[in-house]
């Protein structure tokens, strides 16, 4: 279906440059720095982050420090200055909250079992102890890169599923009984994990 009037919205010039323009028009400098650092899994300098976020270096540094204080950003001090990356626990806690919202304890146990089985298949098939060993053995053009990617995913899933399982009943402040008392016992025990009602998610 063609909508004639919407052609006016189309970009001018290069689509990549237009995408940057739209993004900067749509966001504050703080939002851009947060979005960039949230997808930064290798330490980078403030100037590198600034360039990607289309902000000045002092602005990047200011927002990165604020984000580091909230625990969202990890800082690493090196001889050539401070490096920044996303805090790995941020990534894990979001996944764990999603799992607690959608899955029962039994489903998590089953997933762990399946993932361990998949890991064993890879170990047997390639005759290596772990995924790092396979990384060292593969060369460009080899078959097996798809399996390597899958195996890395299996290891990440396992770590997160195991954490999700151990935190399933996590309730140090006894907040559930407190909530039940406060609401006259109308809150029936729900079949989901402790962090499943954590709605503190920001895109």
């Amino acid at each position, binding site marked *: 279906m063609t909508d004639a009037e919407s052609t006016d919205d189309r970009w001018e*010039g290069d689509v990549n440059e237009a995408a*940057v323009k739209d*993004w900067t028009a749509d966001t504050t400098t703080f939002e851009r720095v947060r*979005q960039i650092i949230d997808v930064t899994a290798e330490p980078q300098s403030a100037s590198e982050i600034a360039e990607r976020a289309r902000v000045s270096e002092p602005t990047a540094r200011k927002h990165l420090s604020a984000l580091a204080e909230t625990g969202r950003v990890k800082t690493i001090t090196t001889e050539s200055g401070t490096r920044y990356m996303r805090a790995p626990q*941020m*990534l894990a806690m979001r996944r764990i909250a999603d*799992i607690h919202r959608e*899955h029962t304890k039994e489903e998590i146990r089953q997933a762990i079992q399946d993932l361990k089985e998949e890991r064993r298949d890879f170990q047997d098939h390639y005759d290596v102890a772990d995924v790092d060993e396979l990384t060292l053995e593969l060369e460009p053009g080899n078959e097996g*890169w798809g399996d390597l990617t899958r195996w890395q995913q299996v290891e990440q*899933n396992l770590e997160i599923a195991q954490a999700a399982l151990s935190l399933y009943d996590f309730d140090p402040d006894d907040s559930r009984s407190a909530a039940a008392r406060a609401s006259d016992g109308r809150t029936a025990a729900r079949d989901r994990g402790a962090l499943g009602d954590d709605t503190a998610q920001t895109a």
Partner: protein
Amino acid sequence: MAPHTDIEGNVGPIDDVALDQIGSVFTRVDGLVESVGFDSHLDPTKLGIRLADGIGEATWCRFDVRWFQRGYYSFHHIDEQEVNFRYDYHPKPDASQRHFHRPPEAYSDDVEQSCITATDPMIVARAVHSLWRRAYETASLVHLNDADNPR
């Protein structure tokens, strides 16, 4: 064992934070987006973004998006008319790392250099969307990999 891909290289595990950002971009820029979701939370392999209409005769379409921790990605389009194409960035012998798998089949060996040069997920997502949107509005697959917008 591994799902079908043509990735040949160490790309790292799925980056679900990047995928969340990509989902938000599509939802924000296009009212046709019907649903956005991972195939699984325990074992996420892709983010599906479904739109309520498609290019030409297609009545719906979907992007299956993969984004990996080392910054590599794959945006795979499929629709009701079985039109496939893909904007990819990953190691691939005998091809440019940033490459485009042509419609309608998006065969692994039917590739050309991708017009997308952006590197961060929220920018790549906007570029992919703009290219799709132009094809949708003109009901044509011809310029899907053409960064310039002829006026």
